[in-house]
């Protein structure tokens, strides 16, 4: 049985959204099925993410939200469905099979709820990414990251003794010393510096208090609207930016998303 995509009410109005409503989806999954040790988690679902769309992915625990994000990120093999057929994933009009996976994954980025870091400073972790072959033409830009952080509402991730605002201290901290919530912010920054098109956010603020959550939400909102690079809505690239957001907090999803895709409809077949 196909899953229903329901539009939920949204109070915020982002102009870029309406212009992209009719266009082809930037990322779509057709007929996706998944089973884990013999149990069908979901069957033949169709999910579409339009350019500029902020899609909430909901469902009870165990409904396979993370599995769906991982599948869309190309981290997991696409399972066959109940009658043996394989689903497909398309991004920017090209089938997943036509994409080089490293290239694809820098455009469609999955962010784990419990991000991993190497045992070195936050900044070294940021730099390390640029050693990967797929990023060899890019360069780490410390000033850019500091500028992003300075736009944000509160110096929530700096230590108090500096009086706030000194984000370079954050970059120098050993990644192992970050709290769970700070690590989630560091993971966001690590991905955003690679200029992704789609973010697959797996409970991106689950380990954060209200203050850090506000910080993260603002960071992501600024990224999505292009404000991060001071190009609000004027750049085509930013209008395309979209996310799928998994959260157990309905308030947050109402704040941060336009539409909802629910994995919880009956699982009968």
């Amino acid at each position, binding site marked *: 049985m196909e899953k229903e995509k329901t539009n939920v009410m949204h109070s915020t109005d982002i102009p870029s959204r309406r212009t992209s409503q009719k266009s082809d989806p930037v990322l779509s999954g057709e007929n996706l099925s998944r089973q884990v040790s013999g149990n069908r988690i979901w069957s033949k679902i169709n999910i579409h993410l339009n350019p500029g769309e902020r899609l909430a992915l909901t469902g009870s625990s165990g409904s396979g939200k993370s599995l769906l994000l991982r599948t869309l*990120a*190309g*981290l*997991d*093999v696409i399972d066959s469905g109940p009658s043996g057929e394989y689903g497909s994933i398309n991004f920017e009009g090209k089938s997943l099979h036509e994409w080089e*996976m*490293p*290239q694809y*994954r*820098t455009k469609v*980025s*999955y*962010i*784990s709820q*419990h*991000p*991993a*870091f*190497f045992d070195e400073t936050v900044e070294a972790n940021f730099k390390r*990414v640029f050693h*990967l*072959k*797929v*990023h060899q033409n890019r360069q780490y830009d410390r000033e850019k990251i500091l500028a992003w952080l300075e736009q944000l509402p509160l110096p929530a991730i700096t230590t108090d003794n500096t009086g706030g605002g000194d984000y370079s201290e954050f970059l120098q901290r050993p990644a192992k010393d970050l709290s769970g919530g700070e690590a989630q912010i560091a993971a966001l920054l*690590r*991905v955003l510096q*690679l200029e992704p098109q789609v973010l697959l956010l797996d409970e991106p603020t689950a380990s954060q208090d209200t203050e850090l959550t506000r910080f993260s939400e603002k960071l992501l909102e600024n990224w999505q609207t292009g404000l991060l690079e001071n190009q609000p809505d004027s750049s085509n690239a930013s209008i395309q930016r979209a996310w799928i957001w998994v959260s157990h907090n309905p308030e947050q999803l109402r704040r941060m998303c336009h539409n909802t895709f629910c994995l919880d409809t009956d699982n009968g077949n």
Partner: protein
Amino acid sequence: METNYIFLTTGQLLIASVLMAVNIGLSLILKLGLAKQWSIGSLRMVGQLLLVGFLLDWVFALNNTSWILGVALFMTTIASITAVGRTQKRFSTIYLNSFISILGAAFFVVFFALSGILQIDPWYSPQYLFPLLGMVLGNTLNGISLALERFMDSLSVRRKEVEMLLSLGATSWEAAHDLIRDALRTSMIPTLNSMMVMGIVSLPGMMTGQILAGVSPGEAVRYQIMMIFVIASGAALGATLVVVLAFRALFNSRHQLLLKRLRDLS
């Protein structure tokens, strides 16, 4: 060369076996509960070695190429099964991968030693092939099982790190590189350590055996040096091969980590 070699009679072996009475006695007095195991172990050891002696005598006398290579292949198979047996995880092609690695590594270094260094004609002359192959297999087996165990273990333990790299655009090789390096280092360090203390802490078995057989220590040492090089390179080659094959089995061409192919022994 064999002037002062002493042939051991069955009676002399029986006298040697009296020493096991010490172990069994200690176990009984101190209630270690090992008396039975010592007896079984001794009997197994005697049985297995006598059997190998007979078998090798027979193969030596027969001097038939297919039998020689057949026995060598059999030893290799047993070594590859033993190497996997010491690990805690399995994937479907693990035995095949172990066999390919041990076969490739052992035969390469043994062939190199026999035909390139010792220049024996034919290279599979059993008097040289079996002692060399035996030593190489034993060490390669260790290297392979250490490397496999470490690689499979760190794939599950460091899964988050590997998938973090993959989702940041790493190729599967880039994502697994640290783990591969770590597994190879782990497998090579015992060989390296034993090389470091060779002759100081330990007098290797082959050299000791040659000296007992009447070869002068200065001569025996030369053989031992060659042997250490052969053994070390066999172990390193085998470990590298097996880790690369395991890497290929546990990642696919879509740069996905296939951890569900890996299952724990329970």
